[in-house]
């Protein structure tokens, strides 16, 4: 086999080389013939030119002598010139005597032969004059202008052609011989340096194809560069193959180890049978001991698939591999049922390169899915009652479009029950209420209910919003009357309240309030507002009234809260100071600190607009603290006393209390600080308040009662609180000059204070007449626009 190939290879290489060599030798010999001809021709022409030049110099030399000797003597020149011409012709003849060249001169169209026959000279003259290229002669000429001579030198081409023919055969023979020799050398070289190596390469390739690497012989490195490269590459390839085989074995071991170390089930399959699988596969499909056994009874693992991504899977109708591999974006959740097991797997499929097989990876996520479902349930349900929670209600309201209604229910006095009977009792009550409501709403065919109530119950859903709050939402109703809805609320309330609850041997009555709203927007808010109204007005059920303006007030409050929060974060809460005039010394002795909110445009907003909102938003104490901080800072280096308003709420608030005392302890002259107690609905804890006021006085600070004489501020205040200053309410002062009743009340207050050694301040003094009256009545201090409006700066 190898020998035949060797012969063929030799023939294939040698014959073309031989043919090319023959052609090349012909071309080279023709080319060399041409070169030789040109070379010899040039040699002849050059020799001819030398002869012509020599003749020219002879003539020129003769003429120069003639010129220098007789050129300026006309007569003598003409006489001598003819002689010189004849002598020149003789000289030319002598110079040509022993040469191989023939020559003649054309003088006035006459031929004067120098060497050679006259006939031949005329023949050459004709060729020369017609400017033809002669085939038989080499011709060269020169003009001697002074004498108008044309000197022609010529030579026959016979000798030239003889030389040419002699050389032609020599050249052809030489070239052919050289070509044959070169060819033989090439063949020899191929045989020695290539054939042997190529044969070995073929042998090696055969062994490689059989996989018998050990029989491969390393090739010798003594041939041409290209062959050397080829041999090197093959040797490298052989070594690489050896290494690759070892790497392949190792990789195979690695792959098996990786497969077996996986917690996932890994299968290699083409969809019709399984080719490989790891141990996890046999752990799950535990009836089968090996793949063959599995393949006898099953075509593919897909046969055990119950559903894919939530859709039922029928192995007879669809190809599971196709479904899973097409879904590239999400995990494929597959429910697998085998024997009594029912597990959820996350299945991924990857196609193997260059085969129709797939690697199927199945990750058991049953536990994770169960946990996820539980988390999801807990997210949307109340722990205690297992009812849907507030989050679920919000999402449901968002999801459902069109007309809907909401009943929000709040159990009354559950706090007290918790406090008195304990939280477990409270929880029990909540569970019982939820059961009652649930049973009531689920019983849609009760004969006791009207038809409309039955329909409403069918569309209703119960939620436990947290604590003692429940909600009944009615969705997907085309239309219903408010009265029907109220009927459902009343019926539900009745179910809660009617029966006595027996809990831990206690018979408890549970009452509830309900807020009802109907519509498509703000359902929750509206129901909540209606509930608050019910609670406030101590009604059982309140239906939200769109025209009540509650929602607008609610919204306005929200806007104010937002403005307030922004102002606080941007430090736009400012203090203004209104002077308090001492009527006796006729000097400003004190200032009252008042708070203002600076809006975005720099305008000051009075506390009337934001204090109530601040109270609701639990920002009140923050405002108090800010006012204290800023006023303390402002009056730190001044001589005046200054007052700050604090409410009973501030005193009741532990942090505010601590802050006031802390600030007072750091202030250099605490006796200049006056705390004005704002009027309050009712002071219940006088002892606690007095205790705090005592602490203030310990620092040297004074206490004033603001707006005395109206509202809740009365003499009981003065009796219960240890105060230093009393500020008479503006409503009594502003008409002091005209209203006798006001004057009478103020007289009483002034008398009382004089006896009790309390300083008196009259507020809202806005004109001279009032100021005069204030002075006349013996009031110590005046405050109001008559003295000055509040300003950001003080004296």
């Amino acid at each position, binding site marked *: 086999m190898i020998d035949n190939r060797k012969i063929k290879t030799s023939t294939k290489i040698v014959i073309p080389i031989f043919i090319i060599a023959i052609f090349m030798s012909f071309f080279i010999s023709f080319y060399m013939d041409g070169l030789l001809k040109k070379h010899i021709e040039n040699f002849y022409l050059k020799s001819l030119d030398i002869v012509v030049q020599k003749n020219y110099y002879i003539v*020129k030399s003769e*003429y*120069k002598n003639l*010129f*220098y000797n007789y*050129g*300026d*003597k*006309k007569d003598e*020149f*003409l006489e001598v010139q003819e002689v010189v011409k004849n002598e020149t012709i003789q000289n030319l003849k002598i110079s040509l005597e022993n040469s191989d060249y023939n020559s003649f001169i054309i003088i006035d169209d006459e031929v004067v032969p120098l060497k050679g026959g006259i006939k031949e000279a005329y023949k050459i003259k004709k060729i020369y004059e017609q400017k033809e290229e002669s085939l038989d002669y080499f011709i060269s000429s020169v003009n001697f*202008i*002074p004498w108008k001579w044309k000197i022609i030198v010529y030579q026959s081409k016979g000798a030239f052609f003889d030389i040419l023919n002699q050389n032609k055969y020599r050249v052809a023979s030489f070239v052919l011989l050289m070509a044959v020799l070169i060819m033989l050398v090439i063949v020899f070289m191929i045989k020695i340096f290539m054939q042997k190596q190529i044969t070995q390469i073929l042998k090696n390739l055969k062994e490689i194809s059989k996989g018998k690497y050990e029989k491969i012989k390393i090739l010798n490195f003594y041939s041409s560069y290209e062959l050397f490269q080829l041999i090197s590459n093959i040797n490298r390839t052989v070594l690489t193959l050896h290494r690759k085989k070892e790497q392949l074995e190792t990789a195979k071991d690695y792959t098996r180890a990786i497969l077996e170390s996986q917690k996932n089930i890994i299968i290699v399959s083409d969809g019709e049978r399984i080719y490989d699988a790891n141990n996890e596969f046999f752990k799950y499909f535990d009836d089968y001991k090996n793949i063959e056994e599995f393949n006898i009874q099953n075509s593919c693992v897909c046969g055990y698939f119950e559903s894919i991504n939530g859709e039922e899977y029928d192995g007879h109708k669809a190809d599971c591999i196709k479904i899973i591999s097409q879904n590239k974006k999400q995990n494929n959740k597959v429910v697998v049922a085998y024997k009594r097991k029912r597990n959820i797997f996350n299945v991924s499929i990857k196609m193997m390169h260059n085969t129709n097989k797939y690697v199927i990876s199945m990750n058991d996520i049953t536990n994770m899915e169960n946990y996820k479902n539980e988390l999801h349930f807990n997210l949307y349900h109340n722990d205690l009652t297992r009812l849907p929670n507030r989050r679920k209600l919000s999402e449901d309201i968002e999801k459902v479009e069109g007309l809907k209604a909401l009943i929000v229910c709040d159990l009354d006095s559950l706090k007290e029950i918790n406090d008195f009977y304990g939280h477990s009792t409270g929880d029990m009550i909540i569970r019982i209420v939820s059961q009652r409501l649930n049973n009531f709403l689920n019983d849609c065919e009760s004969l006791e209910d009207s038809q409309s109530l039955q329909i409403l119950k069918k569309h209703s859903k119960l939620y436990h919003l947290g604590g003692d709050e429940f909600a009944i939402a009615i969705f997907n109703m085309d239309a219903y009357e408010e009265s029907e809805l109220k009927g459902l609320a009343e019926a539900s309330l009745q179910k809660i309240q009617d029966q006595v609850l027996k809990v831990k041997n206690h018979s408890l009555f549970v009452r509830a309030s309900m807020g009802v709203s109907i519509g498509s927007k703000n359902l929750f808010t509206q129901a909540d507002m209606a509930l608050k109204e019910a609670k406030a007005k101590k009604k059982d059920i309140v239906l939200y009234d769109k025209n009540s303006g509650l929602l607008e007030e609610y919204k306005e409050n929200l806007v104010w809260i937002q403005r307030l929060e922004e102002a606080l974060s941007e430090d736009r809460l400012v203090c203004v100071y209104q002077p308090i005039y001492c009527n006796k010394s006729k000097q400003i002795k004190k200032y009252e600190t008042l708070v203002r909110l600076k809006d975005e445009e720099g305008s000051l907003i009075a506390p009337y607009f934001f204090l109530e909102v601040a109270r609701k938003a639990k920002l009140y104490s923050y405002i108090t603290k800010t006012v204290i901080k800023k006023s303390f800072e402002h009056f730190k280096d001044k001589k005046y006393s200054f007052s700050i308003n604090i409410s009973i709420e501030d005193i009741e608030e532990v942090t505010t209390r601590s802050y006031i005392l802390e600030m007072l302890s750091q202030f250099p002259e605490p006796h200049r600080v006056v705390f004005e107690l704002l009027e309050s609905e009712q002071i219940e804890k006088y002892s606690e308040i007095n205790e705090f006021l005592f602490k203030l006085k310990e620092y040297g600070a004074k206490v004033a009662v603001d707006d005395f004489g109206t509202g809740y501020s009365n003499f009981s205040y003065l009796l219960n609180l240890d105060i230093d200053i009393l500020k008479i309410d503006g409503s009594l002062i502003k008409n002091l000059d005209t209203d006798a009743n006001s004057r009478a009340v103020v007289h009483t207050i002034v008398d009382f204070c004089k006896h009790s050694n309390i300083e008196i301040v009259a507020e809202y003094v806005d004109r001279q007449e009032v100021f005069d009256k204030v002075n006349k009545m013996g009031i110590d201090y005046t405050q109001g626009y008559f003295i000055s409006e509040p300003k950001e700066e003080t004296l």
Partner: protein
Amino acid sequence: MIRVLFCFITYFILSSTLYAHWVIRFAPLPMESSQKVLNDYKDLINYLENEIDMKVEFVYSTSYEELIDNFLQKKIDVTFLGPLPYAYLLSKDDSSVALAQFLGQGGSAKYTCTLFTRKGVDINLDNLKDKKIGLTQKFSTCGYLFAQTALLKNNSSLSKNKYKYTGSHSNAILSVLLNESEIGSAKTSIVEKYLHLGIKPIVHSDLYPSFVLVANSKTISDQVMQKLTKALSKIKAKKNITKSWNDKFKNGVIDVDYKMYKDMQKLLQEIGYKLDR
């Protein structure tokens, strides 16, 4: 020993000084062979030797540059110069004194130059370029000076053509005859001699002054200078003295017309003539 050396040095200094008084170093025209110089100048030199009672010695120069250099370096006492070299020498050194102006052929004190070609050849000087031009010598009036002046008048110049110096007037003529040059430039009187060989004049120059005998006042004493002037005045007075002399000198001498040489000096400046050209 020192005495002997002193005597030698004194002898050499004295001998050279004395020799200077006895010999006049004469530089003939440089473009001529020594044999021709002897033939051409022998009558003039014999006459001067007799008149001034001093030996005249030839100092040969191969070119006008060499001759002028020698003159400036005080190696030459008297020389015979054409108008261009003399004008050039005037611009370089004012110590040269023109003793007499020799009359040319026909007794004229002026001569002209001619640009010529060969019969049968048509040459138009207007915007002439890439033509082969054969000139005499750098310092020949009929060489660069005349050819450049003539070509500039016709919107051309020597630099736009291929010019070469042939060495003499007759060589310039021969180079045209042998077709080595297409145009030649030479003294008109010489050109006319060769018209019969097929020379065709193209244009003639204005008049140039003739040759002058120039003395070097830096090397010649006033006494000798007076003697030379007296000798030349004698020739001016008696024309028979030169009758048998060579053609160059046989027509006698006249007083030097300095204005013509000064005009030529201006012309040299106009055409931007430089010695190293």
